[in-house]
């Protein structure tokens, strides 16, 4: 996207451990930066859901590399002529796994046949407006984005 004189692009980055205790650190970092950029609360909640599901996937299913190397978080908030988007990229060193295209388990028809689990993929795809994946430098890079009409902070 090419930015004009009246467009804003603000970025932030954070490295965390692939650990349960750092998930809230990540959430608070994301929410704080987003709020400072005038991202509406509803959009922050959507980003928070996606961020939690992405990190939960790394922590729950990651191999040794995923769990011992830092998880890199990058975020940007961008507004162009009132069309805004906020995007978070989660980069982990685990084995390749494409959350954007992995098959989603069929939903059960009753509580009796429901198996806990498998909701993370559904949630991250449902609550993001765009979801992209790439493998780069032996790392998974998952980017989720939410969009709204408004203005970013100057």
């Amino acid at each position, binding site marked *: 996207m090419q930015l004009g004189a009246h467009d804003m692009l603000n970025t932030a980055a954070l490295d965390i451990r692939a650990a349960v205790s750092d998930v809230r650190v990540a959430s608070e970092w994301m929410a704080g930066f987003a709020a400072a950029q005038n991202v509406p609360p509803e959009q922050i909640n959507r980003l928070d859901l996606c961020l939690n599901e992405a990190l939960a996937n790394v*922590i729950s299913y990651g191999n040794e590399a995923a769990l011992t190397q830092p998880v890199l978080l990058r975020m940007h908030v961008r507004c162009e002529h009132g069309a805004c988007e906020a995007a978070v990229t989660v980069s982990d060193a685990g084995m390749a796994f494409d959350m954007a295209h992995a098959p989603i388990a069929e939903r059960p028809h009753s509580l009796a046949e*429901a198996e806990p689990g498998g909701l993370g993929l559904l949630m991250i795809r449902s609550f993001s407006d765009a979801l992209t994946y790439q493998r780069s430098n032996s790392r998974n890079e998952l980017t989720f984005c939410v969009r709204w009409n408004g203005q970013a902070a100057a």
Partner: protein
Amino acid sequence: MPIEFEDTSDTLRTIRIAGRLDLVGTDEIATKFAALSTVHDRRVVVDLTGVSFLASIGIRSIITNAKALQQRGGRMVLFVGSNESVAKTLETTGIDSLIPLFSDQAAAVAAASA
């Protein structure tokens, strides 16, 4: 206290959960939530009005305990009141088709007791 309960009759229990049901928050309440839900032949209303954030790990916990209760002859319903974000998460994931979901407390109690 992020989880508490009230037995309003011999057959009806309300479990109130508050705070963030993320990885940390769900782990904090998991043992007590399971203990409160694994009662024989009791109806349970889970009050989620005080939940500020509901991740899939929190939904897993709800499903697990609802199944355990059902296997003991009981029934679980969910009460969300005006908590739109939690209601949307439950509806988006289709949980409302597995466990009845109510915004009205009286309706939740009636459905649990039916």
